[in-house]
């Protein structure tokens, strides 16, 4: 009786990779909460967190401890099971996207086993990201509805309509990119952006699709519910929005999933538009180092470094711009971004047809 004839080494390799990615994302998200406070402090000419440890570096740990210790309150009139399901779904969908990101180039171990720094290279990579993004709204929606609170319900309705509206422009802006790359697999998209300069032009997609990137970035901001698009948790109108009735670690999961989402979407944006783990003069560095394992780690470092720059961008935007009004948000999405994305798609198609004749 043959049940599972899968290579054990493969399972162990992927398991280690998954654990490292999960812990890494959690760690970076944890320190993103610290960085957010530090950035906001610097931008508002304050000192910011400085009590817990040097530069307040232990603040995320203290936060986590506090959230774990708090009393767990489930409102009397909430829909019990869905109320618990909400934050779980938010966290699950935040973490799922990391499965298809290529974190670095392959390297061979001394035993000849080739390690792939990607959990799954699937044929439909980018569509998988869309699938997960489109499911991401359930966490907020179900949580807000199950709380049985009018503010929460209003907030979850806002979140859902905002997510659906901006998903369209997100998808359209990406189609132009996919027309250029001709592949949905993130691994292939990264390989096409090798180095920094190729065939007499920048190899990174940002220099070929600047408008597409800007649309993608704005839509990502909206999908993440980050300011200036944080209408679902708009405190001046909705108190705290969809997580008003949540306490303890369930609230923590909601807050935390936002930061994980921010990290993963930064990684996806870097992968799509800024060359992923590629960096300038990488071929020369690879020649100098010889050791492919160390080179892979340098590549991972390049990817994470670019992602951190992207996260800082999100933070600067949050602490600079005021929040949109709801009608302005809808107008921007439907009347500006979608036509822009469509125009970008047409121009890209025309250029490919006339100049490159693919």
């Amino acid at each position: 009786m043959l049940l599972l004839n899968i290579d054990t080494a493969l399972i162990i390799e992927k398991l280690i990779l998954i654990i490292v990615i999960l812990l890494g994302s959690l760690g970076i998200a944890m320190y993103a909460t610290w960085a957010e406070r530090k950035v906001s402090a610097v931008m508002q000419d304050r000192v910011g967190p400085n009590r817990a440890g040097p530069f307040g570096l232990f603040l995320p740990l203290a936060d986590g401890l506090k959230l774990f210790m708090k009393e767990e309150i489930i409102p009397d009139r909430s829909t019990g099971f869905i109320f618990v399901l909400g934050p779980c779904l938010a966290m699950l969908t935040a973490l799922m996207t990391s499965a298809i990101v290529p974190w670095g180039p392959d390297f061979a171990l001394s035993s000849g086993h080739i390690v792939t720094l990607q959990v799954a290279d699937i044929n439909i990579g980018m569509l998988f990201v869309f699938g997960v993004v489109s499911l991401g709204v359930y966490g907020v929606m179900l949580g807000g509805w199950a709380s049985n609170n009018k503010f929460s319900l209003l907030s979850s309705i806002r979140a859902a309509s905002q997510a659906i509206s901006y998903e369209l422009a997100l998808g359209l802006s990406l189609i132009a990119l996919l027309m250029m790359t001709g592949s949905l697999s993130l691994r292939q998209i990264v390989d096409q952006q090798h180095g920094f300069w190729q065939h007499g032009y920048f190899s990174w997609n940002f220099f070929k699709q600047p408008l597409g990137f800007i649309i993608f970035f704005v839509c990502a901001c909206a999908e993440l519910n980050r300011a200036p698009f944080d209408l679902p948790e708009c405190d001046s109108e909705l108190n705290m929005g969809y997580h008003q009735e949540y306490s303890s670690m369930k609230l923590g999961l909601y807050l935390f999933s936002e930061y994980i989402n921010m990290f993963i979407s930064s990684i996806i944006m870097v992968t799509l538009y800024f060359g992923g783990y590629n960096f300038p003069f990488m071929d020369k560095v690879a020649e100098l180092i010889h050791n492919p394992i160390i080179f892979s780690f340098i590549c991972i470092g390049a990817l994470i470094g670019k992602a951190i720059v992207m996260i800082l961008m999100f933070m600067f935007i949050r602490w600079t711009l005021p929040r949109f009004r709801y009608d302005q948000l809808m107008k921007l999405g439907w009347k500006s971004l979608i036509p822009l994305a469509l125009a970008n798609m047409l121009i890209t198609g025309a250029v490919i047809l006339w100049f490159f004749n693919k």
Partner: protein
Amino acid sequence: MNYNIHDILFWGLSAMAVGCALGVILSRNPVNSVMFLILTFFAISGHYLLMNAQFLAVVNIIVYAGAIMVLFLFVIMMMNLNADVEPQKGQLVQLAGVISGGVLFLVILAAIKSASPIDVDKSASQIGLIDNLGKVLFTKFVLPFEISSVLFLSAMIGAIVIGKKEDTHVINK
């Protein structure tokens, strides 16, 4: 007894699909129904994956689970339906429902019975991959594809026209 992983997944997913589909019609709370329907879509996507139709699987998730079911949930939340305000249907309506459902079931059963099974190696087929699907859609089936896109366009325009109607006396800006 020689099960392989393919068979185990197939039966598991089938049980999940049928079970969740039953959950959709049997649960009293409309929100639970919607969640069961989402799970059913996931099970069906799993079946697509078993047939190596990755594109279909993920588009099924994006379109049905990610967009249409969100709208369903949206409407149910707005209407604030609960188990205790479920409208009771009359006996005659229930009977009509049973008869029409039964007739549909009969037609589907007859169609499946007369269909001849084609023996293809499902797990190795390349038909469902995005390259092949795109080629087939834009060469062999280009006319139906374009006609259906015109249909969608007209539906979108229709929705805009209906939505605009009441807007004339509301102050813009």
